[in-house]
């Protein structure tokens, strides 16, 4: 009979091994899925994971890795702080949209003025926008005990409607021939989040993502607040005795997560995407949840996981174009990854033992 024995301490070895195993299991079962869809599984997996890095057109795809990875890492770092303390912000998609709207709003308010201070102002506005959107579930939870999962998610749908309203109304390009969408910020030099080194994909969002990784690492490992976050997640009762104020922690975790998601949105709208449009958001806020878990809620892990998920985005697009693999297959693939990770986590927290059946 197979028995599960709870480990006194989560196993460090398994904690590191499970994400790798999960990726391998996903490749295996994803390959099966692709085979069911009538594609050559080996070719499909190679197209997704190998071609963007080392394929014939890799020089074009490698910059995309940074472009897609930066928002994922930025958002996931913010989410991981909350997840560690059992504060579940799953509305990052909404905070991402509002951050982008706030950033673009500032830029368009100054148009066509060219000045050095416009971009920094946009950064602040983007962070504030996301922060404010995340403060809604945070304040409601602190003041009324409202469930932050549901409120933050509902606000995603509200933000999507707001985005539609803005791109059809207030922020619409007056010279856009009536098409929905704002002016293209790529053509507005003071507001353009251009590549720092041309054609590398290295824009300010990537820098911000790297800074956020370092910041989160120091916070969690060297700072009292980070210790409180971890303590609240592991032992809420002990945390209360240690003088942790839950309300402040909720405000901090949700607020930081919102600000980082807002920043991600702002860097996206002023750079790779260029304009506010109805279909501006592509689900980074939700994929970032997978990134956070795959990275074991650890800043460095998140950096690696963000790169991997960015790879599946780009590889998925290539597979779509070359093999006719449906876009949804990649979404299934990413969902599968989270499944396997959660399932394999059993090995981190429990020891699987074979035991002879005893007579009761």
């Amino acid at each position, binding site marked *: 009979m197979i028995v599960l024995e709870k480990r006194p301490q989560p196993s460090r070895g398994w904690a590191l091994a499970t994400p790798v195993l999960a990726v391998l299991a996903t490749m295996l079962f994803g390959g099966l899925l692709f085979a069911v869809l009538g594609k050559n599984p080996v070719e499909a997996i190679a197209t997704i994971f190998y071609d963007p890095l080392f394929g014939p057109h890799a020089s074009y795809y490698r910059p995309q890795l940074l472009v897609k990875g930066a928002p994922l890492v930025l958002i996931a770092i913010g989410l991981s702080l909350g997840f560690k303390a059992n504060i579940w912000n799953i509305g990052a998609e909404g905070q991402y949209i509002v951050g982008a709207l706030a950033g673009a709003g500032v830029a368009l308010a100054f148009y066509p003025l060219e000045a050095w201070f416009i971009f920094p102002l946009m950064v602040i506005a983007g962070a504030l926008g996301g922060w404010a959107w995340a403060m809604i579930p945070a304040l409601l939870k602190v003041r009324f005990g*409202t469930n932050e999962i549901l409120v933050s998610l509902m606000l995603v749908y509200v933000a999507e409607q707001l985005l539609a*309203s803005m791109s059809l109304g207030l922020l619409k390009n007056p010279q856009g021939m009536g098409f929905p969408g704002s002016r293209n910020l790529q053509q507005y030099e003071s507001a353009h989040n251009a590549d720092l080194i041309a054609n590398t994909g290295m824009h300010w969002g990537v820098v911000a993502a790297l800074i956020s990784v370092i910041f989160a690492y120091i916070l969690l490992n060297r700072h009292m607040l980070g210790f409180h976050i971890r303590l609240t997640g592991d032992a809420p009762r002990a945390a209360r005795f240690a003088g942790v104020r839950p309300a402040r922690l909720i405000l901090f975790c949700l607020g930081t997560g919102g600000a980082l998601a807002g920043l991600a949105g702002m860097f996206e709208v002023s750079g790779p995407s260029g304009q506010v449009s109805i279909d501006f958001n592509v689900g980074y806020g939700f994929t970032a949840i997978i990134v956070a878990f795959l990275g074991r809620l650890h800043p460095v892990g998140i950096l690696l996981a963000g790169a991997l998920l960015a790879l599946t985005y780009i590889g998925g697009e290539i597979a779509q174009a070359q093999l006719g693999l449906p876009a*949804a297959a990649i979404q299934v693939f*990413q*969902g599968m990854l989270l*499944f396997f990770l959660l*399932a394999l986590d059993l090995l981190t927290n429990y020891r699987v033992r074979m035991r002879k059946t005893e007579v009761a």
Partner: protein
Amino acid sequence: MDLSAINPALLIASLMVAATPILLAAIGELVAERSGVLNLGVEGMMITGAVCGFVIAVESGSPWLGFAGAAAGGAALALLFALLTQVALANQVASGLALTLFGLGLSALIGQGYVGIKPPRFARLDIPVLGDLPVVGRLLFGHDPMLYLAIALVAGVWALLRFSRAGLILRAVGENHDAAHALGYKVVRIRILAILFGGACAGLGGAYISLVRVPQWTEGMTAGVGWIALALVVFASWKPWRVLLGAWLFGGITVLQLNLQAAGVAIPVEYLAMSPYVVTILVLVILSADKSRAPAALGRIFHASQ
């Protein structure tokens, strides 16, 4: 703007239709939560049910088979959740999110070839005399069978939880799984059954959207209804009849805002479309002061360690 174009009797009739998917999903989730399991994958199970129901109904030409397939599809996805949370002892919040992300992708994949197709019509009940009564006939007797089934399900769950031994055991598991385990009840088995029931109900709710309410298939068509159903369970403080009340309230808001859009009210369409979500938040705020009704073991992992 012409508000007189809104017919109250038709409004209420369509309110009941709009409420049914939320009602089905919420009553299933209520049973799962009463057994102590928080399944945040309702949205994923609903959209999977919507696509399974649609595909099967189109291929077989029978909406009834479609609904059966939807229930099976929802339950199949729920089984994944059950394996994760009850066997692999994974975090329920994370597993539920995974279920939703996976379900959204899977449904888009299955439904690729079915965009823009009309499903077979699901006939309304046609009761000769009663259905012809002026206002009441349309309101009470002029709906499709699923709508009545949903209401019957609420009554059934209520009776089961309140009067039956099975209901008592389910509640015991949800309130204190260690005590239930000590009494010899199979906590994991009971919870898996409750999760499967929740999945089947969510699947039915999804299929009701794709086969009756809309009726067609588009990607992501459930548009947050599963999450509203989750909110509804909190709103109802885990009581079946209040779920019905809440579902009609949300159905009413949805229908009313659609009617206002059609009537050309001076509020932009986007702001009207926000309203069901904003109202959900408001209702959650008003009602979340009282948490005492929540099943005590909700969301906690059960492992018979000792």
